[in-house]
Every structure is written in structure tokens, then in C-alpha cells.
């Protein structure tokens, strides 16, 4: 169980990061698994092939991915709607192919193994319970940062962009730069999650960073609730834990999983964070009425 909670933590960082972009600024990305993968692979290759310290590799991975996203953001974020989805999708696929094809560097489809754990002095994060505290420390920091960001002037500016870019620009918001900055921040956080993943799993292969995972991340954010940091945590937790719980259905788990997702989007279009209280509220008055009459 501890092992799954480690993944809940990693996915929470990813969902929070994507929510800043998708939920607040209203810019879709179908390529976030690529940033996650870049973080993991840069960390992995630097430690395994070049013998660098894990923390330094993690720092380089996060910065490099952030800078890449910043540069990439200028042309890509000019696009809107479906076109933006297509461009980020394309980016995700390109990165996935690079992971697969550069066999000498990444180990190709069979993966990269022997990635060292993170450690401080004599403490090595080599067990599930230690990794649990490590990953959740990072998850809490990213939740805290994101909450602050969302409540700041920047958060309000992002929501303004979400509703109307023209109006936001009219109010003096530098729309273009802000979109790129939030894209870079989101990528940077995803890369941190990627590094954590690489150092806790000690093995990475391209299959974990494909298009499917990008879609899963978007699903986490939407199921949890767009524009709610706590919602992202709920979405990440649900989508990570659900497959474990549904293993009891054996061969039918995928069908049940799909059905639950459909039901949740049908009856809680605002996501878990709004849907669950909504359902509870709608139940309560009905009961009272029943008693009165």
C-alpha cells in the first residue's frame, strides 16, 4: 500500500502542475507526460551514465526542462483550442520517439536501470516508507506553492486569461509572457515529479511516458475539478488508487474503471471537489422534507 501512496504523491505533483495550466490559465496540454519523462530521463542518464549526484541531477533536470518549455512556449502557446492540443500532442509524441530511438543514451524501449536512490548524508531513500515521506514532502511543497500562486495577482491574471484573453490584455496583463511562464512552471514541476519517479523506481522505460499517460493526467485534473488545487489531489488519488481496488474484478477491471469515469463525468461535471459536496447537499434537504411531511 505504501508503494501506491508514493505514486499518489508523484501523480499529485503532476496533476497540480497541469491544473495550473489547464484549470487556471485554460491552456490544454496533451504532452505533459513528455515533461515528466524528460525529468526522469535527464535525472536517470546523468546519474547512471555520468555518475552525477542525484540531487544535482534532479536540479539540472528541472531547470533544463523548465527552460525548454519556456522556449517552446512562445511559438506553441500562440495557438488556441484544438490547435494547441495538437501541437502539445505532437511534442509529446516526438519526445516519446526520442526516448525509444536513442538507444545508446536512454537504453531504448528496454529501459534504463540502476538509477540510484536519493539520499541525504547517511540516509538513503531506499524503502517505500522513506520514499513516501520524501515524495509527499515535495507534493505538499508544490500544493502550497500552487495555492499561493492561485490566490495571488498572478492567479487572478491567469483566471482572467481563461475567461477572455482580450479582456485580460485590456486590464494590462501581459498575456503572452504569463502563458509562457505558467507553461514553463508547469513543465518544471512535472520534471521534478519525473526525477522523483526515476529515483524512487530506480528503473525507467519509455512506456511510462507515452500519450496514454498524458491523457491520464488530463483525466486526473478534470475528474478532480478544473481550477482547484485540492481537486487535483483528489483526482490523482482516485485515479491511482482505483485500479488497485478494482483488481478484485480481475479481467473486468478495465470495464468497471471506464464505467466509473463515465458516471463521474456525467454526474459531477465540476469534478470531485465540487460534485461530492453538491451531491451531499442535494441529499440533505430531501431527507429533511421527508421527515417533515
Amino acid at each position, binding site marked *: 500500500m505504501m508503494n501506491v501512496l508514493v505514486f499518489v504523491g508523484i501523480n499529485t505533483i503532476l496533476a497540480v502542475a497541469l491544473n495550473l495550466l489547464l484549470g487556471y490559465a485554460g491552456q490544454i496540454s496533451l504532452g505533459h507526460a513528455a515533461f515528466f519523462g524528460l525529468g526522469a530521463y535527464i535525472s536517470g542518464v546523468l546519474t547512471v551514465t555520468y555518475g552525477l549526484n542525484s540531487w544535482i541531477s534532479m536540479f539540472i533536470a528541472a531547470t533544463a526542462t523548465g527552460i525548454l518549455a519556456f522556449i517552446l512556449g512562445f511559438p506553441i502557446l500562440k495557438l488556441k483550442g484544438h490547435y494547441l492540443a495538437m501541437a502539445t500532442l505532437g511534442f509529446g509524441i516526438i519526445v516519446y520517439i526520442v526516448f525509444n530511438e536513442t538507444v545508446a543514451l536512454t537504453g531504448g524501449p528496454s529501459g534504463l536501470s540502476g538509477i540510484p536512490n536519493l539520499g541525504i548524508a547517511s540516509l538513503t531513500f531506499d524503502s517505500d516508507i522513506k520514499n513516501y515521506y520524501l515524495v509527499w514532502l515535495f507534493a505538499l511543497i508544490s500544493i502550497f506553492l500552487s495555492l499561493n500562486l492561485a490566490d495571488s495577482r498572478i492567479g487572478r491574471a491567469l483566471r482572467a486569461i481563461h475567461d477572455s484573453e482580450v479582456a485580460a490584455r485590456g486590464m494590462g496583463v501581459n498575456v503572452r509572457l504569463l502563458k509562457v511562464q505558467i507553461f514553463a512552471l508547469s513543465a518544471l514541476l512535472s520534471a521534478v515529479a519525473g526525477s522523483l519517479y526515476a529515483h524512487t523506481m*530506480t*528503473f525507467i*522505460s519509455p512506456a511510462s511516458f507515452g500519450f496514454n499517460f498524458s491523457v491520464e493526467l488530463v483525466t486526473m485534473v478534470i475528474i478532480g475539478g478544473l481550477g482547484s488545487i485540492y481537486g487535483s489531489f483528489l483526482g490523482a488519488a482516485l485515479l491511482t488508487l482505483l485500479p488497485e481496488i478494482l*483488481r*478484485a474484478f480481475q479481467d473486468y*477491471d478495465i470495464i468497471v474503471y471506464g464505467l466509473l469515469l463515465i458516471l463521474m463525468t456525467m454526474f459531477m461535471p465540476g469534478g470531485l471537489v465540487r460534485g461530492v459536496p453538491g*451531491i451531499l447537499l442535494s441529499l440533505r434537504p430531501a431527507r429533511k422534507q421527508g421527515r417533515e411531511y
Partner: protein
Amino acid sequence: MLSMTRTLFVALLITAQATIVLAAAPPIKIGALFAVTGPASFLGEPERNTAQMVVDEINQSGGIKGRMLLLITYDTQGDATRAVQAATRLIKEDKVVAIIGPSTTGDTMAIIPLVEKSQIPLISCAAGIKITEPVKPWVFKTAQNDSLAVAKIYEHLVKRKITKISILTVSDSFGSSGREQLKNQAAKYGIQILSDDTYGPKDTDMTPQLTKIRTNQSQALICWGTNPGPALIARNAKQLGLKLPLYMSHGVSSKKFIDLAGDAAEGIILPSGRVLVADILPNSDKQKKSLLSYVKDYQKHYKAEGDHFGGHAWDAVMLLKSAISKSGENPASIRGQLEKTKNFYGIGGIFNYSPADHSGLGKDAFVLVEVKGKDWKLVP
């Protein structure tokens, strides 16, 4: 929410029933991880089917010294993250004594640190050479090394005095492992690779690569991939009128390949486990008995031909059965007993494990077969 509570309740009921049925005698729990869905399902599905079939049969014939076996299977979807989660669950919650699978090299490499630390024997059904080289105390495998398949093809080329070839490999773990071996061993056999191309697992037209090959001096083409890519290559080659002898990998050693490639499959030569040609093997062949019984059983249960990949799971379960019946169900003694396995006549070949060799098979694990008249014929 309501629906979720209800499904959870149903889930609990199902597990509860399963426990009641088996409560009679405490079963020996064996874990299995296969890529039943996802891109590697061509491996995982026959493996899962075979493993379940073999375990059912062992139980019907009285189990191992009266103890039933319980096979707990999880789907990895060919994704390392899921493989690790499922393996953790098998070890920590289901408390299995040994694990068979996973189906792919990537999944196997991902769970190796975990099984080594938890000291649970693992019999992988994946072929990657990295799995057992260097030898890891708790990790064994049943799939033949790709290097053996390559050696088999190269020996045949040498016999035909072919020295210049082109290779065309798929860009997934199966193809990249084959490509590596093809390149590494070429010099040893005096073979020169004139062109080295790849294609994507989902590509539908390989004419560009083949056109390039047509214009160079190659005397043969080796294609390394799994269905459906190689069938398309065979068809494209025929359309282009490419007259080179075409060699494929054991990745397509199933009837499905002949169905997909149709007439274009005629004359193609590939290395395969003996399972494909079980019925035409000479009676002196020591594996023949295992092979025939596997093919017959699989046909009976699943109305399909037992293939090469399902055979890996057959070998894994049977190796485990023989180790457990000799040494008991303690993971450490199972591991020790597996390492002592000698002359085990399986589906993939004749297994001889030792402390220095956890892959256990020699070059004779492969035979060369040729497609003739929509069926397989042995190449002498």
C-alpha cells in the same frame, strides 16, 4: 458515490467467495504478471492462458503433494509503473512464494530490484539478455536469448555463402534487442550489414525501406519484429518484386503470421522454438512429449494453436512445480532448487540452470523453419 460503494461491496463478496472455496486446504500461492492488454498483449495473453491452464491441470491431478496451487495474475499492460505496483502487491499483500512473468524485458527489469530485495524467486518470460546477464541470484528466465536466434540465422547464411545483408527491425524492445544482436554478431560470422533500417510498430507501409534495400548489393534481408509488421514487409517485398531470401525472427512464429502474409510468406525462413513443428519432429526428440501435450491441451481449452510465447509460461509453471515438489514452498529453497534444474525437457528447449547461468538454454533451443504450402517445414 453510491455506485462506487456498491461495486466495492460486490468486489468484497467476490474475494470472500474465492477464499471460502479454497479454504479447505491452504493453497500454495504463485504470482503471475503478464501484459495481457496493451501493445505486448500478443505475449501476455497466450502466457496468461497457458499459465492458468497448466495450474488448473496440476490441481485436477491432485496438486503438489496434495497441496493446491493458487495462481494470482495481474495485468501489467506492458507498463513498468504498473508492473512494479502489481509485483509489490503480489509480494507484500498476496504473499506469493514465487512470481512468473512479466512478459516484456522492460517490465522485468523494472521489478528486478524489488524481487532481489524481497528475496522472492522470479521466472521471467521475457527474452532480453540483460535479465540474466549478469546473473542475479533470484532471477531466472525461460524465453530463449535473442542472441541464440541470431546465431541460428547467421549459421544458415554462412552455409549458403551469403555475406552481405540488410536488416530491418521494429523500434520496440523486441526489435532493438534483435538489432543489437544482429550488429554484434555479424563480424564473428564474416557478415557485412549494408543497410540498417527501422520501422515503427504501427507503420503500415514499408516500401520506402525496401526500395532502398533493393538498390544496394544485399544478398539477403533479415527482418526483426512481431505481428503485423513483418507480414506487411513480406507483402511489400513481393509487390516490389524483391527477390532476396527473406529471414524473419521468432517474433512471428505463429500461424497468424502465415494468415496475415498469405502467399508472400512462402519461402520465408525463421528460427522458432520447437513448438511450431511439434508434430513433424522426429520421435527421438526429447522435447516431443511435452510439446505435443502442450499443443493438444491448448487447442482443447482455447480453440487456438499453442504458440511459442505461451510456451514460456508453460516452462515457468512446470519448472516451479518441479522445484516446489522437490524442496517445499519456501522461497529460498525454491530458488536453490531452480538453480539445480538439469535436463528439464520444456517447450522452449532443454533447461540446465546453474549458479553461473540463469537462462538455461543452448543454441539447440531454436530450429530453423521455412514456410511451405501455408505450413511450417523444418530446414535441415
